[in-house]
């Protein structure tokens, strides 16, 4: 397995020296503060295009790993990415950069909400923002569902519907639902792929 054989086309000016811890902290703080409604887009832009700390393929592989693991993806990404460049200290620097500034902002907002949350103007505005935020979430669901609908994949669509009903309508606890649905989905996917391959 020659996984390390260099690809034919290499980025010529790929950053040779790994960035310092402060640089990592600042870069992740910046992308976090720019990231309204999700940080991923900004993270990719900063890491791949601006700083050239990773190639596009390396970034995709790192992100796929973080997506496949539990927890907030972008937070996982900061830790994995930082540690690949500078060891565990780099991971902590990127993690802290990503979380510290927005957590402080959020805490200030929480204090403000505790004091002024009952003001009618604020309540009305937040109600409108909530409606829009739900609409954004529905749009993400639609975008993610499109490939499944195009493939007319009955297994995936029915699993999706079952999880939706169990959590959204019946309000069952998440761990129980996932402990039942995950092995089912993995097993079914495994057998389907074997059948297709055979």
């Amino acid at each position: 397995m020659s996984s390390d054989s260099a690809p034919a086309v290499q980025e010529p000016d790929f950053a040779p020296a790994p960035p310092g811890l402060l640089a990592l902290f600042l870069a992740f703080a910046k992308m976090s503060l720019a990231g309204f409604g999700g940080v991923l887009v900004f993270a990719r832009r900063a890491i791949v295009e601006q700083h050239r700390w990773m190639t596009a393929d390396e970034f995709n592989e790192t992100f796929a790993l973080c997506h496949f693991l539990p927890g907030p993806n972008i937070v996982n990404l900061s830790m994995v990415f930082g540690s690949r460049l500078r060891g565990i200290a780099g991971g902590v620097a990127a993690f802290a950069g990503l979380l510290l500034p927005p957590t402080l902002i959020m805490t200030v907002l929480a204090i403000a909400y505790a004091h002024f949350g009952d003001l009618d103007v604020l309540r009305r505005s937040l109600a409108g923002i909530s409606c829009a935020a739900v609409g954004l979430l529905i749009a993400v669901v639609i975008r993610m569902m499109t490939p499944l609908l195009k493939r007319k994949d009955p297994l995936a669509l029915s699993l999706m519907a079952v999880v939706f009903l169990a959590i959204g309508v019946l309000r069952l606890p998440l761990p129980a639902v996932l402990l039942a649905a995950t092995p089912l989905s993995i097993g079914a996917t495994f057998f389907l792929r074997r059948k297709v391959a055979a």
Partner: protein
Amino acid sequence: MKPENPIWALISTFGLMSLFAVGGAAAAVPEMHRIAVEVHHWMTDKQFTDAYAIAQLSPGPNVLIVTLIGYAVAGIPGALAATLAMCLPTALLAYYVSRLLNRPSQSRWPGLIQAALVPLSIGLMAASALILAQSTDRTIAALLLTAVVAVVASVSRINPLWLLLAGGLFGFAGIV
């Protein structure tokens, strides 16, 4: 029945939840709602949807809705405890797994598992949308606003911030 120390309740709740949060923060919203509103009565339904709106409107990862929940339970220490409990364990897990799988996947298992998880995480996010919609969209105008934003955001690449601000303006004007 209140637990002895609310900080520990936050840490154990969100630490455990993060390990099941496959598919990111949006997929964990129904579980956050169930625990914070229905099980522990940390917040009202309205406070929870407000917190979701504030988290969407603020910069940073959307998972930071847990900061707001933590603050509602136990002030600033609660905010910090909830944030770390939700973010740190899985980040460390990711660190160790990435060291284990140092080279990109040789086996087909990661790809297969990932494919198998996709429908589950979409189902979870759809459930989040339903639960949030049930508490925000109580009028026809509110329902329409949600529907219009959903359509606009699915067919265009407009920055979500503008749609959130537009929603805020409609709310400010007392339309929804």
